[in-house]
Structure formats: C-alpha cells, structure tokens
C-alpha cells in the first residue's frame, strides 16, 4: 500500500479530491442522520457531540420503508432483466442482422426516451388503469423496463458492433443459428457492456420517482423513493429521518455497484479477444 502511494502520489491526491466531491454530501447526510432532532440545525460543531440511532429506528422499524425497499428490488431487478434480455436481442439484430430501417429504429428508440415523462404520465397511467395494472409492481417494472430500453439498445448495439464481425460469421459457418451464436459466443464476450447497461437500467429504475408515484398507491407496491417522499408532513420536514432513509435507500445500490464492478473487470479479462 505504501509503495503504491509513493508511486501514485499525484493520482492519490486527485482521487482524494474526487472522493471529497462525490462522497462529501453523502457523508454530511450520514452525519445528519445521527444527530438528535434538537441538534439538526446547530452548526458548528461539525462533528456532532451527541449521536442517536432514533432516526434509523424510525426509518427501519416504524415505517413502511423496508417493505418499499423489497418492492424496489423486485421492480428494479425485473426491469433490468426485461430491458437487458429484450434489449440485447434487439441490439444484436441492429448490429449484425440485415433488417431494414436500422437508423429509423434507433431514431424511434431515441424519440421514446426523449419525450418528457410529465407529458406521458397521464396517458400512461390511464393505459395501465385500463389494463387493470394500477397499483401493481408489474406496471412499474414494465414501465421502467420500456423507458430504459432505448438506452440499453443504444449501448448494447455499440458494444456488439465493437466485437469483430468475423466471430459471428465463423459461428454461423460452424452451424450455429443466430440464436445460438448470440447466446454462446456474442453475449459472453459482451459481458462488460451487459454489466454496464444492466447497472444503468437498475439505477434508473431504483431512482425513478414520477412513474412510481403515479402508478402505485399502497404499501404493497410503493417503491423506495416514493416511500421517502412520504416522510415529510404538510409543513414539517423530519430532516433526520429523511437523511437516514436516504442512506438506507442508497446502500443497496452501492453494494450492487460493487458487485457489478467485479463483473465489468472479469468480463474484460475473460473477453480480451481482439479483432
């Protein structure tokens, strides 16, 4: 470790600055979440003199946030799987198969993700209500999958295009169907791309507020950001509880990012076949 610091002194300094920029606000949130209510708006001291677990107690044991976290996991996971599966097939077709109007398809994909959600929310909500999907996790998961599909398709298309054409052609000559070629040859090689796309979709779904707020109505379907929005009262804002809740909501994604990181790196070393 010492050696590393000596050789990477400058990098370490830059890293420290970057870390301060990225983590500073989160750390401050952590500090806030440990302060008793009376000390919340007292500054200085920078480091609180008294700490309390009362906010975490309220958030984890006395609210519906844990249930909402579980909902969020289901929604984000199913949205990710749907978007990545559907998206990689579509992206592969766009990257390697001779279908007509590729640029039109990519354009339409962009259009759908370019349209402001606030204008779509009303018709979408009415559609889901007609389909009988109001207040179900399916509605939220499906919506998140579809609205992140364009990003997934764009990303994966660009990743597939970077893999050498010859790989696919060789697989076809060996007698693979396009399906077999995609599943056995292309996808394993595109793992870093898949991991990045999956992470992006997951985080989008985890964070999305407006659709989730509108499509859900009860504790059994509410996702985590919506549950957090339920903490403030008409006038009063419980900052301590909010701070604790926001950390609790962020933690799973941080863990996931850590896990995915491994995949991104592993994918790079395993798939280092260059054209």
């Amino acid at each position, binding site marked *: 470790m010492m050696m590393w610091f000596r050789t990477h002194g400058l990098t370490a300094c830059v890293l420290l600055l970057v870390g301060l920029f990225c983590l500073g606000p989160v750390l401050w949130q952590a500090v806030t979440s440990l302060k008793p209510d*009376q000390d919340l708006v007292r500054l200085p001291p920078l480091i609180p003199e008294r700490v309390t677990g009362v906010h975490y107690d309220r958030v984890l044991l006395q609210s519906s946030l844990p249930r909402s976290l579980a909902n969020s996991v289901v929604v984000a996971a199913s949205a990710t799987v749907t978007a990545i599966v559907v998206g990689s097939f579509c992206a592969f077709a766009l990257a390697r198969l001779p279908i007509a109007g590729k640029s039109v398809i990519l354009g339409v994909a962009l259009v759908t993700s370019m349209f402001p959600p606030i204008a779509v929310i009303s018709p979408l909500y009415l559609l889901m209500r007609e389909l009988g999907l109001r207040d179900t996790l399916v509605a939220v998961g499906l919506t998140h999958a579809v609205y992140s599909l364009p990003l997934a398709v764009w990303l994966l298309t660009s990743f597939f295009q970077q893999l050498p054409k010859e790989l696919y052609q060789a697989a076809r000559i060996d007698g693979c169907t396009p399906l077999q070629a995609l599943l056995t040859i292309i996808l394993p090689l595109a793992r870093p791309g898949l991991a990045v796309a999956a992470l992006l979709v997951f985080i989008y779904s985890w964070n999305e507020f407006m659709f989730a707020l509108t499509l859900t109505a009860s504790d059994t379907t509410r996702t985590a950001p919506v549950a957090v929005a339920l903490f403030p009262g008409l006038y009063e804002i419980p900052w301590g509880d909010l701070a604790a809740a926001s950390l609790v909501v962020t933690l799973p994604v941080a863990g996931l990012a850590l896990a995915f990181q491994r995949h991104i790196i592993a994918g790079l070393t395993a798939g280092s076949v260059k054209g």
Partner: protein
Amino acid sequence: MIIGAFFLLWVSTTFGCTQAGEGTDRASTTVVFKHGKLSGDGRVLSDLLRDFERRHPGLLIREELLPADSDRQHQYYAMNLDGGKAPFDLLAIDTIWAQEFAKAGWIAPLDEVLTPTEREDFFPGPIEAATFQGRLYAVPWYVDAGVLYYRRDLLDRHGFEPPHTWPELARIAKLVLDGEQDSKLAGFVWQGKQYEGLMCVALEVLRSNGTDLWSGDRDRAEYGLRFLRETIATHGITPLSTSMADEESTRWIFGEGHALFMRNWPYAWSMLQQEGSPVRGKVGVIPLPAFPGFRSAPVLGGWMLAMPNNSTQQEIVRELISFLTSPDTQHRIAMELGYNPVRRALYTDESLLELRPLLKDLYPILLGAKPRPVTPYYLLVSQAVQPEVSAVVVGRRSPAEALGIIRRRVEQIMGEQTSPARLGRS
C-alpha cells in the same frame, strides 16, 4: 438460470400480490380513502376508520397515502378525476381546490351531509371556500390560519409590547436588533420562496392594508408589496435567505432562537415548545399585524373532505364524511394529532383546552381568517402571480411594475372565462 429465477420472482411476487389484494376486496364493500400523509402518528386516523368499520359490518376502508406535498396531490387528483373513473371514493383536498374541482364537475355536492344550520357550528371561512354556486361541495376537516410568533423574553428585555401594526413590528425589530448586537439574530422571518406560501404572506400583508392583490386600492397594494421587500432591503430585519424560505426553514431559524418575529401556521407551536427547544417557554402567539387603520387579515388554510362524482358508494361515503367531521372525531383528532378542529364549540371544550391551550388564542384568529380568493380559477391566478411577487421579494421588479403585470394578467384570466383561448400567455 439467473434470468429464469428473476422472472419467476417477478411473476410470483407481482401477480401473487395482485391476486391477494383483489381477494380481500371481493369479501366486502370497499371504500378507498385517498389523502395526503398526515403529520403525527398515522395510526390515529387508522383507529378512527377501524371504529367506523366496526359500526358497519362488511365494510372495508382502505387508506391510500399520497405525499404531503400538495403539488403532487393536485397532480394525482387531476389525472384521476378528469375522465370520471377515479379509483377512490373519498379524498382530502386543499381549501383552495374546492371551487376548481366543483366547477370541473369532479366532486359531488354534499349538502345533505351538513344542513345549513349545522354549518353554523363551523368556522365561516372554510364553509365559504367549500360552497360553489350555493351548494356545499366539501366538508372542512381541519383548519389553519397565519399567525405571528414572537419572542416574549426579547421583547420583555427591551421593554416592548407585541406589535399590532406592521410599521410597529419593523420599528421594534430594528431597535431590538440594535440592542442585541447579535449577528445571527433576525428580526422578522416569513415564507418568501416562490410557492403557494408566498401567496398567503402577500395576501395577508395586502389585505391588512385594506386592499388585495388584484382588486382594491392600487397604491395601498403597492405599499404592501414594498413593505415586504423593505423588510429585507431597507429595514434589514429580514435575512436575505427569506427569499427561499418555506415554513420549515423559518421555523428552524426561529426555533434556534435566531429570530424575533415569525409568520407561520400554528403547527410550529408544539415544536417550539418541545423538550430541548432553545425557545421553549419564551414564545408567544398573536394575530398578524395590520397597517394603521386596518384589521389583521390572516389567510385561511386547511383541508376538506370531498367525494368524487363517480363514486359507487355515495351513501356510505357521506356517512363516513359525517363521521370524520363529527364533534367526537374532531375532538379526538385535535387531542391526538394536534389539528385545529373545524367545529367552533370545541374551542371552549375544557379537556381539549387543557392539553392544547393555544386553541384559545387561535379561536378569534380562525374566526376572522379569510380564504384565498374563492374562485375556480384560483390556481391559474396563483401561478401567474407567484413569480411576480417572488421577483419583488428578491428585488428584480419594482412593486409598481409587478402589480401592473399581476392585475393585467388576472384580469385576462377572469375576463376570458367565456373564451379562454390564450390562458397560457404570460
């Protein structure tokens, strides 16, 4: 493999939940009660609803919460009520929405719930706000009004009485600030962010000068707006940060002992009196000041209960509204949640006054509180006016200029009730 597992998880949890939910629905009559999150313990209301259920076997009341943020609630209600297929049977609405929802034909008249004589028991302001074309469209549930908080200890130390007029407030604040020499102390904090709260403050100041934002004497209106700006710019009694302040940020400043006067709603009282609060026992509440020769003009706030036009359970919903606004329930909500009841008789109730002595001081204020302009077009007007008042607060527009725009714009909105072709223009 992993993918398959995820799909199984998805299918099982989502469809599993839906079926379970529908299963319980079929077993009985269900009434869905949609409302914003209440302050305090949500179980108080749940208990009340369970009581009601016990009196009506086979009835199930499902509460569906919305965030307390009233913009989001308005959005949700508009989306659902327009088209007449709202998936709820009872909803809680802000006082300023009653006219709009009634005009749009979204909510049903509730005249039978409250007979005209029974309406006498309520405060007049909310009843006025809920009455559209002679019919009652919502029943007031709890009320609010703007009040002035002051620091009794600071006034005592400098030998002042609480102010009754705005100029007096400014003068006292300046003298106390000079005397205290505390750089952290502010004289007067209020809600100056560009949002509905600013509308309330502006209306209170202008109406207490015998005028109004878009009608009434123009010079006095200009004077009122200038007073707001001058608390920041020339008197120096209001911190710059007021231009982004909402109820909570003013309560923090005042609650930390860093302000002499504060305009706020009554909710702040119990928080200021909490164990460990630096200003505990040092705070007084009085009616908002007025300009010399005029009366204090607090703005009315609060929420009401209404029923969507398409509800299939009209009978039971009316009964439920009746129950939630009955003297007993109002008493309980006031005792346990600290909400200001809508029935005037409760303000002399001994058991209630013992627990919440502030109600005695609030009574005359709530009695005189005036609703924001009672018109279906209030939100159109408010959205057009807010940016202008906010611009005055931060010194981007002169009061005269802003008032000119406000009055022109409002006239346009009101004038185009018959042909509202160009509402979007500013």
